């Protein structure tokens, strides 16, 4: 039974496919070790799908939902397009945020989400090797995307009233 890993970054959504958690669950120590080596890590998980954000506004909207533990319609579409049918295939979706399964079950009632010590370790590995695992995409993109999105997101937080500077005192 395969496990898919949903990994959200400033540049887009990605889905990694890995061996079942049951299969590697007993090998937590070796997972911890393998995440330091890309070659070994690639034997555990590989990229299944990636959907880049095309606009800065799109990245910000998605981040605001993700940060709040909700899903954006882009995420819903990404999962619908790239996950196998739940009824025909038995698999689990690993997530980093324990609030996400509740939100996702609204749209995928049969989907089984998972988050535990082992999936946490796998996500460390994905975060570690993301640039190399997502071949074909400009490596510098992620750092640049994070910088731009962080500014947009933080600005949206500190300036909740964006009209603040346009108000005239009469």
């Amino acid at each position, binding site marked *: 039974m395969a496990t898919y890993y949903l990994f*959200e*970054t*400033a540049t887009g959504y990605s889905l990694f496919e890995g061996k079942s958690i049951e299969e590697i669950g007993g090998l937590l120590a070796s997972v*911890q070790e393998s*995440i*330091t080596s890309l070659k070994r890590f690639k034997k555990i998980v590989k990229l299944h799908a990636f959907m880049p954000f095309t606009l800065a506004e799109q990245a910000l909207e*998605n*981040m605001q939902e*993700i*940060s*709040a533990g909700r899903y954006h319609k882009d995420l819903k579409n990404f999962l619908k397009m790239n996950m196998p049918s739940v009824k025909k295939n038995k698999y689990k979706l690993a997530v*980093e*945020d324990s609030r996400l399964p509740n939100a996702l079950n609204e749209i995928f009632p049969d989907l089984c989400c998972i988050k535990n010590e082992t999936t*946490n370790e796998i*996500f*460390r590995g994905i*975060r*570690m090797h*993301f640039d190399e695992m997502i071949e074909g995409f400009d490596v510098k993109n*992620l*750092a640049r995307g*994070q*910088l731009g*999105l*962080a*500014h947009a*997101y*933080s*600005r949206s*937080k*500190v*300036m*909740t009233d964006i009209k603040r500077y346009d108000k005239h005192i009469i």
Partner: protein
Amino acid sequence: PRGGPRGGAKVIVEPHRFPGVYIIRGKEDMIGTRSLAPGETVYQEKKVQIQEGEIKIEYRVWNPYRSKIAATILGGVEQLGIRPGCKVLYLGAASGTTVSHVADIVGLEGSVYAVEFSERSGRDLVNMAKKRINVVPIVDDARHPIRYRMLVPMVDVLFADVAQRDQARILALNAQHYLKNGGRFLISIKANCIDSTVEPSVVFEREIETLKELGFVPEEMITLEPYEVDHAAVSGVYRPS
């Protein structure tokens, strides 16, 4: 007191044993960092310009009374972890004054992911980050690192100055997601924020025990006297191989 270099005073700048940190020798010795944004000050800190051939290099004086990392360096910490080219996750960035010096140290090959929850301080942080493109400002809650997961990669160093009772737990949560195996951590501990009913030394010892339980290997502890009262900094390694 004013102290320090005045106009025309002879000042010599030497590298500190930590790359990216400098000793500014004048009337009194100070430490500083080489400014990534010459001409700008972040918190009215003093600037020192040195002419090297054709180019002018600007250093910013780093005040240990205003920065716990500066106090930690002057307190004689053996390993800082923060060095040119590295990625730092900085929790409790406040207005970004110390963050700006850390950004100077890591340089353009490195990055500082600076987390601050207060919107008021966050605004200053965002403005400072406009002048330093290696600072990634994150106005969010360090207690919930999952909320900013789209913005942070695996980092080499995790620093925390959050002055919260459960700061060791906050450090551990962030390390679990973002600190590389073998990465370094540095945490500033304000004794009376954690427990004001016992001696600071007891609080520090307990915090070190808590850190050990959470997967950290504390290596050294520096008290921040005379710059801060009843404060200590603990530095060490996370998940050493």
